[in-house]
């Protein structure tokens, strides 16, 4: 009954839920923007990838803490 490992699992799950929602909304807006103005698709695609990497960076903060917890 190792509470640290339990907490690590729950923490990782919550972090992934947050990332999934955030990047999902981002992708939806990007699709809509490309649909409205196909000429801007290059700019939209670059900005989308940068924003996705930033959101994932925040998620991986939480994941690193979960790794530390799981090792205890």
């Amino acid at each position: 009954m190792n509470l640290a490992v339990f907490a690590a699992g729950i923490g990782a799950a919550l972090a992934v839920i947050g990332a999934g929602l955030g990047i999902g909304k981002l992708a939806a807006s990007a699709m809509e923007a490309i649909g409205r103005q196909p000429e801007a698709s290059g700019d939209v695609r670059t900005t989308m990838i940068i924003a996705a990497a930033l959101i994932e960076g925040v998620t991986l903060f939480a994941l690193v803490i979960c790794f530390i917890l799981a090792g205890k």
Partner: protein
Amino acid sequence: MTLLTELIYNSADTLAQTGSGKEDNWIIHHIIDHDLFKFAPIQIGSFSLDLSITNKVFMLIIAAVLLIIILSLAARSNRKNRIPKGFGNFVEMIMVFLRDDVVIPSMGKAGERYLPFFFTLFFFILTCNLLGLIPFLQTPTGSISITAGLAIITFVMIQALGMKNNGVFGYWKGLLPPGMPILVIPVMVIVEFLGLLTKPFALCIRLFANMTAGHIVVLALIGLIFTLGYGATPVSIAFALFIDLLEILISLLQAYIFTILSALFIGMAVHQEH
């Protein structure tokens, strides 16, 4: 087909035999540093510095040597042909992309003076990330000490270039946005100082966690072979291969993100009017 399955079963067997002593943390064992040549720690007062060469530091040296060889070959080929062709053309394409779409939009035309720093950052992080995908080699940027070193270099560059362009005092004064009510100023000072520190910290953790998480996922998927029995081998290896291909994309992306965020932060420090 049978030769392939024989190969897979044999490698799984050897992995199981070598890993049986450390079943609990063989994943962590493949991720962390191991000393190759151990030197005694150097004592400076109460601060001990351990400079032994670990496998990741060895990979750093290999990455540096590889970069020197490859990029000087590209430079020599570009110097010989006025119109670049072949490998020199490829390297020049990457450099022109970095100059026109990463550095100049973030830092303005004056950013061209600092292009060598960004080129070094991008190519070094890219090589370090890609080295980790070759079997039996390690990812240098998968170690938080190395990414922390890169982030500290970026932090020093941000402060140094900000102070150089705005004056030593003017830079720190310029951190506060103009026209704030008096009561808000202490809060803004704390927020701006913390912002200065968290931005490179985020760079460090983002790069480290992206690289390490990818390798942990691949190792965990291969470890499924041991938990679910040898029948899970084809599915497990297919998934691990897919994640490995995704890893290539993530290596490129993380090198690009580190570079563009460094350029953005240095641009924000140099042109403080925004």
